[in-house]
């Protein structure tokens, strides 16, 4: 089966990591796995500026935490947010970071004899300035990612079309126009990743 989705989903940076649990259980040779934006949107159930932001922040933060010779290690990364997990944007972003890094709050693998645990690695209500804080648990190095979309304006037509679609008054063409505008903004965010995301080393 072929899924139809905006073409830019697969051309975006791919995130490559190492997963010691995968290696231990013979799942992937050497435990090396890759994620692309398409996979994240399938799980999240949509592509939007929050999902994109979380994806790009994770990508950039891991680049900063692990240099190019090292692969980020799933299960060794703590991800923190400064709001509660019941906050809408926070939980959508947390799910994206969890998918990539393996970090979970309480629902995840609890480990084998103290190894490979994935729980208690997502933190909420932490105090820091920015959107997401990533910490390497092996060397305690951390970075904070900040996401600012103010340079990527929303097309004036988008909000009008959105309310029409939500109220069921939109024509088929208007529905399509809305979908295209929505994903065009997401693509623009990818194209301006270095402007919208700032990584601050701790």
């Amino acid at each position, binding site marked *: 089966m072929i899924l139809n*989705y905006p073409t830019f989903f697969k051309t975006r940076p791919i995130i490559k990591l190492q997963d010691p649990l995968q290696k231990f259980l013979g799942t992937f040779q050497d435990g090396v796995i890759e994620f692309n934006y398409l996979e994240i949107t399938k799980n999240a*159930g949509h592509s939007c500026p929050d999902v994109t932001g979380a994806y790009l922040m994770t990508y950039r933060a891991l680049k900063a935490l692990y240099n190019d010779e090292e692969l980020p290690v799933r299960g060794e990364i703590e991800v923190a947010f400064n709001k509660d997990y019941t906050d809408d944007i926070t939980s959508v972003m947390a799910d994206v970071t969890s998918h990539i890094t393996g970090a979970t709050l309480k629902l995840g693998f609890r480990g084998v004899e103290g190894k490979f645990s994935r729980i208690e690695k997502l933190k909420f209500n932490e105090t820091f300035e920015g959107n997401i804080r990533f910490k390497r648990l092996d060397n305690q190095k951390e970075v904070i990612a900040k996401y600012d979309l103010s340079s990527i304006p929303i097309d004036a037509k988008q909000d009008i079309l959105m309310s029409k679609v939500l109220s069921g008054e939109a024509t088929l063409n208007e529905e399509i126009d809305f979908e295209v505008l929505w994903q065009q903004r997401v693509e623009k965010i990818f194209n301006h990743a270095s402007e919208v995301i700032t990584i601050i080393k701790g």
Partner: protein
Amino acid sequence: MNYPKFFENTPTIKLQDPLSDFLGTFEEGIVEFSYLDIVKSAGHSCPTVSGAYLCTVKALEELYKDETPIRGNIHVRFKSDPLEGVAGVIANVVTQITGATEHSGFKGLNGKFARNNLMEFSADISAQMEFKRLDTGKSVTVNYDPSSVGANPKMQELMGKLMQGVASSEEKKAFGELWQERVKAIFERANEVVRVVLH
């Protein structure tokens, strides 16, 4: 990425996601998940992950028959406590496929598309899991028991060596292969290990 060959022969599951459709993410909102997708996110392939995958696939087959299951329209209940053993691992697999979450996930727009409050733990149910369609109210209960698919006797010994850090690289490889062999056998005997009852 190099992974066991049998992953390619496991069933995939197709669903419709109204939120994906609304936001122009997937045409008609059609998404498809494979065992490989789930394994990558779970961080491993094991009897628990394959069991949760098979239980979800079979539960949705029974609930939807010829229709495409709808993400966000499926409520899932578990008998176990979320902090107990492998409950969290199972829940994450179910969430990835159905979109259902307890607290996380999208909270909705104008009362539509919400993904939270679709999962419950420590539920008073007779089976391990229950999947319910919110549109029709129909539900299925699911039990998973892989005990008939025996583990190779060498596995325990090899695992002990690995955990103590005294396994050779051949032994490490052999352990991984035996482990995945059992997962493969679970897929082959899906009809024996997963029991779905329509209510």
